[in-house]
């Protein structure tokens, strides 16, 4: 098992390096430099700024310095924000985004799995149609559109939830729900098909033939195995929630790193864009790695054999 995990870890590091390099190259492929739109700066001040940000050095040197800084955990300075130190910016925004993301994830996982199991157990009857109907709508309506609908109904017309920004738990309801709907729907469909597949397997019939009670067979045997593919999908699912949070935070004006990242794009604040990409990638790779660990603990075939099957 450890060999398997070590391999996955190294792959993650490699991926991270590729992403960093790619982002760096992309940023510096943009013609012109960030200060050109600043009409009010004198040439001398511009020169100073460029030197301060190290933009006067050759590309390779800049790259080297960037990597070195990253290794030290220093993400650099923002060009536009009031708070210059990017590390500080991230530190301010990350807990908020993390909270929002975690809420959305919990809702999606619990809701999705429950809906999927109910659909599978009530196969081709009312619970199935309801769940799957909801699910297909859930993956079709983009989160940000749902957000606008929710704001319209609950905030503007009914006035029971705040329109935007951050503060109390009420502020988290609509954004978390908007973020959670698509993953929830996806999980519901996946759980349902996985569950149906397991329920059709011989070992379930054999378990019934041994006289085990229905709940025990459903949960202890079928669901247990049905959740394995669901665990593997948690990595990309979290990725979806993270990327979804860009727009949701932007719409709701939530001061998380998502909103910061979005603003940095329109501001062309390159160090911040770069850092945003790096932070997101690290988060995603870390999540994927954790999912790998969890899966290897749960699937005995990996624990024993060091590989799936």
């Amino acid at each position, binding site marked *: 098992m450890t060999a398997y995990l070590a391999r996955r870890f190294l*792959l*993650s590091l*490699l*991926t*991270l390096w*590729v*992403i960093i390099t*790619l*982002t760096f190259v*992309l*940023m510096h*492929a*943009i013609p012109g430099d960030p200060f050109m739109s600043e009409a009010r700066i004198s040439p001398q001040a511009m020169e100073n700024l460029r030197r301060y940000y190290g933009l006067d050095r050759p590309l390779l040197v800049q790259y080297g310095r960037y990597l070195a800084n990253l290794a030290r955990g220093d993400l650099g300075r923002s060009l536009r924000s009031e708070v210059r130190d990017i590390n500080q910016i991230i530190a301010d925004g990350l807990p908020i985004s993390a909270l929002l993301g975690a809420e959305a994830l919990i809702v999606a996982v619990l809701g999705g799995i429950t809906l999927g199991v109910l659909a599978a157990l009530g196969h*081709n009857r009312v619970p199935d149609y309801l769940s799957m109907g909801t699910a*297909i*709508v859930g*993956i*079709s*309506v*983009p989160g*940000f*559109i749902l957000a*606008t*609908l929710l*704001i*319209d109904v609950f905030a*503007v017309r009914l006035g029971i939830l705040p*329109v935007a920004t951050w503060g109390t738990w009420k502020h988290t309801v609509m954004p978390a729900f908007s973020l959670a709907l698509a993953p929830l729907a996806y999980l519901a469909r996946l759980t349902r098909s996985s569950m*149906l597949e397991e329920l*059709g397997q011989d070992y379930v019939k054999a378990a019934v033939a041994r006289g085990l009670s229905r709940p025990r067979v459903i949960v202890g045997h079928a669901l247990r195995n049905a959740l394995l593919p669901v665990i593997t999908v948690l990595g990309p699912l979290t*990725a*979806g929630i*993270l*990327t979804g949070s*860009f*727009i949701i935070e*932007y*719409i709701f004006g939530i001061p998380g790193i998502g909103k910061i990242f*979005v603003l940095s*794009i*329109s501001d*062309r604040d390159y160090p911040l*864009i770069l850092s945003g*990409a790096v932070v*997101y*990638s690290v988060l*995603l*790779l870390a999540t*994927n790695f954790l999912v790998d660990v969890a899966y290897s603990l749960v699937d005995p075939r990996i624990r024993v054999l060091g590989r799936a099957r």
Partner: protein
Amino acid sequence: MSVERAHETLDPPAEVFRPRAHGPAAKTVVVAPGRRREIVRRLGQNRLAVAGFWIIVALVFMAIIGPSLVPYAYDEQNLLEANEPPSGRHWFGTDDFGRDVFARTWTGARISLFVGFTAAFLDLVVGVVYGGISGYVGGTTDDVMMRVVDLLYGLPHLLSTVLFMVVLGPGLFTIIVAMVATGWLGMARLVRGQVLQLKELEYVQAAHALGIPSRRVLARHLIPNAMGPILVNLTLTVPAAIFTEAALSFLGLGVPLPLASWGTMTAQSLVTILTGDTWRLFFPAFFISLTMFAFNAFGDGLRDALDPRLRR
């Protein structure tokens, strides 16, 4: 129910005990209907998929003829009629510049659908070529090519698309390029998997043994059989592309003026939640959702119909 006669009371007359050669229907040969017909039949039984299909047809139809149904151009401003709710004159109402929302919606449909189809199609082309070669050649080449895919896969699609957009600048085609830049990965993996599976099939090995050249094998055997999952993937990529385009619009990276897609229309109409003239927001948002739903439903149905395991 089989026709049963009671055991005890039976005593057939002597004549029927003469030997008889087998009846004309001696051989019940079960003819499997042509594979394609079978797939279409199963698809047809899926009401949701059929609905999805017709919705797509209707949307494409409306995208083509919609704007010509009203006497207004999509960018025709008439400030006297600004912010009017849907009425007999303006079926979808007008926006704050007095532009007819119906005309704009269907012109926007053209853009959104164009982006969706083109991005999905290009994903297909790049993915098929890359995956096909990787799977067919196999060996170290395949390993290396797939490692590259694995690495690029780590970056979320929206994130990389955004980054590419920042670099490439605004524009209809830059959006498509940015989306395809990492969008082809899924298709490549799928095609490679299919090619690998089919390569192992005995009849392909048999064809090889008979001396049929590789290219013919690939074209006449492998590709047609792999078409199924590829087609499903293609159908499901379209809504993802439309979603990404809409997301980009929300981030200010959508199609540039004067073009307007559903995404940009929705993004620009966000403010109407507070001002009250929500029809501007409703129509493009509704149609984005409807389009995604239709493609998802149809794609799902296609996937189920192609599933070799006959399970409801």
